[in-house]
Every structure is written in C-alpha cells, then in structure tokens.
C-alpha cells in the first residue's frame, strides 16, 4: 500500500485497545475492506481468490483425512479404501472433496495464470508478484504429485517411480540421488513416508507464499482489463464490491466442484489407482493426472540426443523443467510496454495459439509417445518455447499497439464494450 494506513471505525473500546497494541485490525481493514481495487475488473479476476479459498479447503480436508490415514506401504491403501471410504463418518465426502479439490485447484490456477498472460499482469511493476506465482505453481505441483502417491494405488506407485526416476538423468550424481530420494533401491515404504511428511509440510509453505503474493499484489494493486495505471477515481473499495462479487463467483464455482464431488467423484481418478500398488504389475499406460499432461508431453517429446552430449532422457527432463522456469523470465522476455492484449492486435492471436498449443500438448501427453502423438508433442514443445523465447521478445519490437486510454472515462474507449457506466 502506497497510501497511509486508515484506522478502522471502532465501535468497541476493547477492539481499539487491542489494535493500538497489535494493529492486525487496522491491517485487515486496509487490505481487505477499504483496499482500492480497479472498478473495471471482469470475472477473470475472480480466479485468484477462488484459488486461495481452494488452498484453505485442501488444508482443512487434508488435516482431517490425516487423522484417519495410515502412511505405511502395507496399510495406506486399506486405510483409504477400506476405512476412510467405508467406515469413517463422512470419510468418503472428505476424501472426494480433497481428491477432486486438487483438480479444481489446478483448473482455477491455470485460468488465473492465463488471465495474467492475456492482460500482461506480469509486467512492470508486478514482476515479483508474477515470480511468486510461479513459485506457488511449482510448490503446488510437488504437493499434488506427492499427494497422489499417498493412497498407494498402482498408478500412485508407478507415477512415483517414473517421476523420481527423472532425477537419474542428471549426470554423475543421478543414480545415487534417486536412491537417496527413495530411501532405498526402489520406491517403497520410506518413499511413501517421506512423501507423506512433505505433503503435509508444503501446503503451509504455499500458504506463506500466497501471503507474500498478496503482499506484492497490494503494493501496486490489481492490474485491470485495460492494463493501464488507474487513478484514484477509477478505483472502488474492495468491500463490498469485490467481496460480494467473489462470493457470487464462489457459488458458481461450487456448482462445478459439487458436480464432480457428488456425481462424478472418480472422473479424475485412473481406474488403475483402485488396484493396490504392485511393483510387479506395470500399468499398460502410465499417465499422470490431467494437470500434468502438457508437461508430461514435453518430457517425452525429446526422443533424440542433443549435440552428442545431452542424452534424450536428460534432454526431456531439462525441457520439462525449462517449460516452467521460462515463466520466471517472462516479465523480461515480453518486450512490449503495453500490458493488456486488448490493445495488442497481434499478441492477442499468439495468446490463443499458446492456449491451443498447451491443449494439444495435454492431448499428446495423455497418449503413448508414438506416431502422430509424438509428432504433436514435439511440434507443441517447439512452439511452446518459440512463443516465450522468440515470438514474445520480437513482437514487442514490431507490433503497433492500439492507442491506450488515459483513464476509464477516456474518449478512446467510447463505443467499446469495456466502457464503464459513468
């Protein structure tokens, strides 16, 4: 917040007494009530708060599930399928809320990320806000992966085997590193137990990162669909305008979430994961959860050695990690000064091409790496990096953006649908 802290209008002397000594109420009042937000935010700006709520839902259901779950290779599957799902009161509900919650969390976060890409929310001065977001994404991926292993179904086991084996591609230290990660010479009970420990720890690290994400957000305030810096008169207090809008958005989201929890609870769970982990029975297709599929496609797209020094397996691992790490540099790779794609006639098309590219990668990731699937994965991977490393840096130099309005009531906006009522 660049402005002075405002004192909340206390009705209670006790609260004022507390706040003078511990100004949490002043802080909450300034950050959540009078916090000035752009008045022209559209519904794509609902997804950040929805993702935040989803994190809390996951932590709450997770904490209760842990009271009934047994992190042991011989007992984990039974404790989930035989105990939580059957004997624990509302255990099935908690488990389905948590398992589907992971999918919902990723869906919300991916929309949130693409919203940031479309409206240029990562650009100056919000670079650190964006980078913290990418850190949160990475932590979410680690957490979700380890959580997926905990029921100790056969896909859990083989997903753990495939993903941890990636580290064996690292030259020299790869093999000993994987043995160290596993706590043995194969994925086994020590692996499950450390994954359990970390799966409990990381959500709280995410929580801390979300806090920093919000701190960075509130430094300059939200970006907006026009991508221009707004003056005070174009801003409205967060409460009640965005609190009520967020609650409405949350209700709509609950309808989607509820549909999966109550009517299609296993839609995102592979049938193979209802078979207990079996080191002797490799599934025909080892496929990760849907939210990892584009990255899985990139991992398997590299089927050739690079320059005789990087073997294909290492190349795939590097490409996969690079596909996320490239996002850290996005604020500087995109050389255009204009934030919103609304005023970038060419970027707008490339944005949608990237969306299609990621969907194609996801489709390729769900299928075996052969024939056209492999070609699609390779072209998709090539285009993904082309977008960030070549197209974005060049586009900022050659694209002629449309004239930017100076404020929400600027005549440039007249006649466009973004014009707010005045």
């Amino acid at each position, binding site marked *: 917040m660049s402005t002075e802290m405002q004192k909340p209008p206390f009705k209670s002397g006790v609260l004022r007494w507390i706040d003078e000594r511990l100004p949490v109420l002043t802080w909450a009042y300034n950050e959540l009530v009078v916090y000035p937000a752009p*008045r022209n935010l559209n519904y794509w700006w609902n997804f950040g708060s929805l993702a935040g709520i989803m994190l809390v839902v996951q932590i709450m259901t997770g904490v209760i599930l842990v009271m009934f779950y047994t992190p042991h290779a011989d007992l984990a599957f*039974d404790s989930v*399928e*035989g105990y939580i*799902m*059957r004997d624990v009161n509302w255990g*099935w*509900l908690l488990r*389905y809320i948590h398992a589907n919650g992971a*999918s919902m969390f990723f*869906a919300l976060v991916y929309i949130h990320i693409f919203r940031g890409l479309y409206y240029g929310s990562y650009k100056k001065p919000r670079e650190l806000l964006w980078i913290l977001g990418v850190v949160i994404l990475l932590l979410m991926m680690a957490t979700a992966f380890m959580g997926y292993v905990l029921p100790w179904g056969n896909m859990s086991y083989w997903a753990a085997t495939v993903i941890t084996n990636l580290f064996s591609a690292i030259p020299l230290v790869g093999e000993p590193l994987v043995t160290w990660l596993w706590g043995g010479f194969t994925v086994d009970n020590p692996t499950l137990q450390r994954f359990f420990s970390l799966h409990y720890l990381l959500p709280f690290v995410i929580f801390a990162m979300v806090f920093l994400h919000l701190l960075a957000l509130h430094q300059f305030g939200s970006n907006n669909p026009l991508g221009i810096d707004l003056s005070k008169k174009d801003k*409205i207090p967060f409460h*009640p*305008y965005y609190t*009520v*809008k967020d*609650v*409405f958005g949350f*209700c*709509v989201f*609950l*309808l989607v979430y*509820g*549909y*999966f*929890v*109550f*009517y*299609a*609870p*296993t*839609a*995102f769970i592979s*049938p*193979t994961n*209802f*078979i207990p982990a079996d080191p002797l029975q490799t599934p*025909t*297709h080892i*496929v990760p*959860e*849907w939210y990892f*599929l584009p990255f899985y496609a990139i991992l398997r797209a590299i089927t050739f050695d690079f320059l005789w020094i990087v073997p294909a397996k290492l190349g795939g691992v590097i490409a996969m990690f690079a596909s996320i790490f490239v996002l850290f540099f996005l604020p500087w790779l995109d050389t255009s000064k204009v934030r919103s794609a609304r005023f970038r006639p060419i970027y707008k098309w490339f944005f949608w091409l990237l969306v299609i590219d990621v*969907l194609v990668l*996801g*489709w390729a*990731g*769900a*299928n*075996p790496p052969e024939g056209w699937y492999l070609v699609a994965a390779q072209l998709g991977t090539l285009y993904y990096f082309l977008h960030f490393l070549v197209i974005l840096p060049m586009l900022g130099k050659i694209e002629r953006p449309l004239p930017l309005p100076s404020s929400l009531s600027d005549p440039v906006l007249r006649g466009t649908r973004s014009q707010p*009522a005045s």
Partner: protein
Amino acid sequence: MRRMLIVSLAAFALAGTPGDTRAAEGARPLDRDWPQEGIFGTFDRAALQRGFQVFKEVCAACHAAKYLRFRDLAGIGLDQQTIKAIASEYTVLDGPDDSGEMFERPAKPFDVFPSPFPNPQAARAANGGALPVDLSLIVKAREGGDDYIYSLLVGYSDPPEGEEGLEGAYYNRYFPGGWIAMPPPLSDDIIEYADGTPATVEQMAADVTQFLAWLAEPELEERKQLGLKFMLFVLVMTGIFYAYKRRVWSRLH
C-alpha cells in the same frame, strides 16, 4: 464410458482413456443402462440381493472381498437377523484366548467376509498359477466399470477362426488380449435364486455386476442425495448473491 463422457464434457478431454479401441485392449464393452446410473440413480435392492447370492455361491469360491463386512449387507436391504444368520454360516479364526490358543468360531456381523484362500500363494496354487483378484473395488478398478464387468461375464465364446489359444486360458473378447485365466464362471441355472427369478447367464451377470458396483461404491445413494441438497442450496445462494451483487454494484452507476 460415463467416465469418458463426463471428463470430455468438462473440457478436460485430455484425461480420456488412451487408445482404448486398439485390438490388444479388448472389445468395447456393451453399453447397458444401470439403475444406479445418473443423477437420480439408485440401486435396485432386489438385484443387489440376487447379486449377493451369485457372489456368495459362485464368485466367492475363488475371489475374496476384503472390504465387505457382513454388517455392510444392511446396505443391500438385508435385516439384522438375516445378516447374523448369513455370518454364522462361516467360520473365522479368532484369538488368542486366555490360554494363548487360536480358536475357530462362527462369524459375526462385524467380521470381514472370509477369503476362500489363506494367502495369495494358496490362491495361485489352486488356480493354475493365476491370482483371483479381490472384488471389493473391481467395478472402480477397471476401465469401463460396470459395463466392462458385465461384458466380461457374458463375453466368453469360442475363439475366432485360426486364433491360437493360450494354455489354461479361455477366450473372452472383452478381456485385454482376448485370453483370460478365469474359466467361464456362469452357466444357466448354476444357482437357484431365492426369489424364483430364472437364473440365466445374463440375469446373473447383471445382478452380480450391480452387487459389485454397490460393493465398490456403497456410499453412492447417500452421496447423490446429499449432492442434490447441496446443489439446490448452492443454486439458491448463487441466485441470492447474484441479485445482491447487482444491487451493490448499482450504487456505482
């Protein structure tokens, strides 16, 4: 199939089942309408009870169901007396008693439905090296779910002309690879239904499939009922907050 439809509807077609049309994966299962399908679907109690009879008299000769306790049978509509009577037909090992000896006693409702074999090695030895899988979750653990289980049970036939058979395996077009170690478990009138329903292979297959679907998802009815209340409640809240949001925002104009 329902799984695939839902997933693609949700625009997450990415997670669809890969390559399920390829020959090695077995024929596409028959698409049957099940009473437990759909938003308002519930189990057919009579079918579940017949299905339990098939399970008990046919499947349970080789297959275990370690998550089935006798008391759970209340869920298929059996009363406490019947459950106690069924349990007492079985003997379970208990103990040790005060003198440190293990002893056998009739099963009680809280006991797990006894496994036909003491351990997997014994199960393999008695089944030509193949392990009869636990049936507790079988409907959720197979692509195609109830349709697949039903199709498999009715899908035995002579192999196509010229197809080389596998030693100790039976041809079943719905089984991935076509050759399954399980002998055809059902034949007409292999059991006599307590309610007098003619015990055709199709009837028994449909009944036991519904029983196994219940066994895999005993919470299904409770889940859908709660879901209906939840969805209606949230729908009303959505309407209220939409109206409230519009009212609050109208102050800006």
